[in-house]
């Protein structure tokens, strides 16, 4: 096979080469400018955050030795040499973990239910009135932007110490996060069934019930499970502000320097999060598997 490569005359080539170099140079300049701006922002941030590399290097040994300490029992031995001693409080911790899971379960379910009710008002294609959509959307935005633990702080004062504040905080935060995701699913739903049902003279409620809900439930369930996973993690720290769960035990152990307890509680949290992640992943797979089969 012969290929003809046309070689341009020198002058034409020079012009093209120059244009090419110029284009490349312009790109490089832009990249350099971006890098400089970024570096300047970083330097400014380093001052703002009181970053002190000397502190870090002086105390970095502390970080390593902290893990050394939390992995050492009072007797001076490594924690895994005496598991019974290490996990001495497992009954109490499992109970607190159970409470943590229950907090996230109840919080997620309440949040998902509220989000389910609200999302039809927030979605572009199903909202009965523009002003209602605006109000609901701002409401969801607020619920999602204010961090869950801030709600928990306020609720601890209103409802008293205990898991109730944690549940409500998680519920509100989940409502905001799920409401947005749910309404996005609804916006992607096929509107033809809705038109079909509306043509029979059905009310708005029946349109939602018989035309939209059947299309979107699998997506809802998937997102709700994902949220549950996130909420387990969030519930594990709710105890920091007195809103129930294993976090309370953890913060006490950290503050009072019960070193081996810290690692034991962290271990139980990590294992629980793993188990939840794997279980919900499997459940999600089954949900979508069901979708694929039908």
């Amino acid at each position: 096979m012969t290929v003809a490569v046309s070689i341009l005359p020198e002058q034409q080539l020079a012009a093209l080469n120059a244009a090419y170099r110029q284009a490349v140079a312009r790109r490089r300049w832009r990249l350099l400018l971006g890098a400089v701006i970024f570096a300047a922002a970083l330097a400014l941030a380093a001052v703002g955050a009181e970053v002190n590399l000397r502190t870090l290097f002086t105390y970095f040994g502390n970080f390593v030795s902290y893990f050394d300490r939390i992995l050492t029992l009072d007797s001076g031995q490594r924690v895994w040499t005496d598991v019974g001693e290490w996990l001495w409080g497992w009954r109490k911790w499992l109970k607190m973990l159970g409470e943590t899971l229950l907090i996230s379960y109840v919080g997620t379910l309440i949040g998902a239910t509220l989000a389910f009710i609200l999302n039809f008002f927030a979605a572009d294609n199903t909202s009965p009135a523009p002003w209602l959509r605006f109000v609901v959307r701002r409401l969801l935005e607020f619920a999602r932007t204010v961090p869950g633990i801030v709600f928990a702080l306020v609720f601890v004062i209103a409802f008293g110490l205990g898991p109730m504040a944690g549940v409500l905080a998680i519920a509100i935060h989940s409502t905001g996060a799920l409401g947005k995701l749910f309404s996005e699913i609804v916006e992607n739903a096929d509107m033809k069934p809705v038109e079909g049902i509306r043509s029979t003279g059905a009310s708005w409620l029946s349109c939602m019930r018989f035309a939209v809900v059947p299309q979107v439930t699998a997506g809802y369930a998937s997102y709700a499970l994902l949220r549950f996973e996130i909420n387990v993690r969030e519930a594990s720290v709710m105890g920091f502000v007195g809103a129930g769960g294993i976090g309370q035990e953890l913060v006490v152990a950290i503050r009072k320097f019960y070193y081996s307890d810290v690692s034991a509680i962290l271990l139980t949290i990590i294992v629980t999060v793993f188990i939840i992640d794997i279980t919900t992943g499997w459940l999600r797979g089954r949900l979508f598997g069901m979708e694929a089969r039908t």
Partner: protein
Amino acid sequence: MTPQDVDTREIRARYPDVFDRPASARLAMPAMIVAAFAILIYGLVDLDFSPSRFFAGLSQLGWISLMMIPPDPGSSLPVYLKALGETLSIALLGTTVAALFALPVSLLAARNIVPSNILRFPVRRFLDSIRGVDTLIWALVWINVVGLGPFAGVLAIAVSDFGAFGKLFSEAIESADQKQVEGIRASGGSALHEIRFGLLPQVLPVIAGQVLYFIESNTRSATIIGIVGAGGIGLQLAEQIRVLEWQKVSFLILMILVAVAAIDFISGKLRFAIIGRRAVA
């Protein structure tokens, strides 16, 4: 054929799986709902949800909301602005440090770079364990190491994001096109050349998008790590809530909302500029 002519019995006979589903299939959904509801009731009882307590708290909450109006920083506006700057600094620095450290590690966790399952497994579990621990817990650990203040916050965000980035980056690397890597290999490039010229140009825009997204979401995380003493606006917020200065609390919450919205806007613009609209849609 008019609708009256349709014999429902005939339709029933023709679509048995629609009209006569087995009892197990029909009962599965209600059974699941009942079970979910039962656990909910058990949870409400176990977690001390009494209606009287709930409504008492609700009226308390109503009072609190009334006392929040109007939002008013009092004389501490400069302090709050400084705290907000601290929060933004924590988010920016923490995310950048996390991304820098996560990039090399994510290569080790990617299937197409490290084909051996045995080598990859510990790296992945390591990243998972870091991710399984909440940012607030990392903040507490770092406070023990470098003391109270925003520096502990930077380190906390850096560590917990390191776990998240490691996973996300390695997924981006795994989904990259192998042909370009093979091209480099065919021309005699070393393994490092393959990564530098075959892989990185493909994954960098994706990674940049993710980093920007995390700066955005870390602004939220950075607002709360102050609650445990790791600097930023959360410290002010927690203090004002504890001393029941509700007008200041509502002002701080408003500040956080505005800051998060601003960061959302800016990083959204940057993300589009880097990866282009097409890639997002």
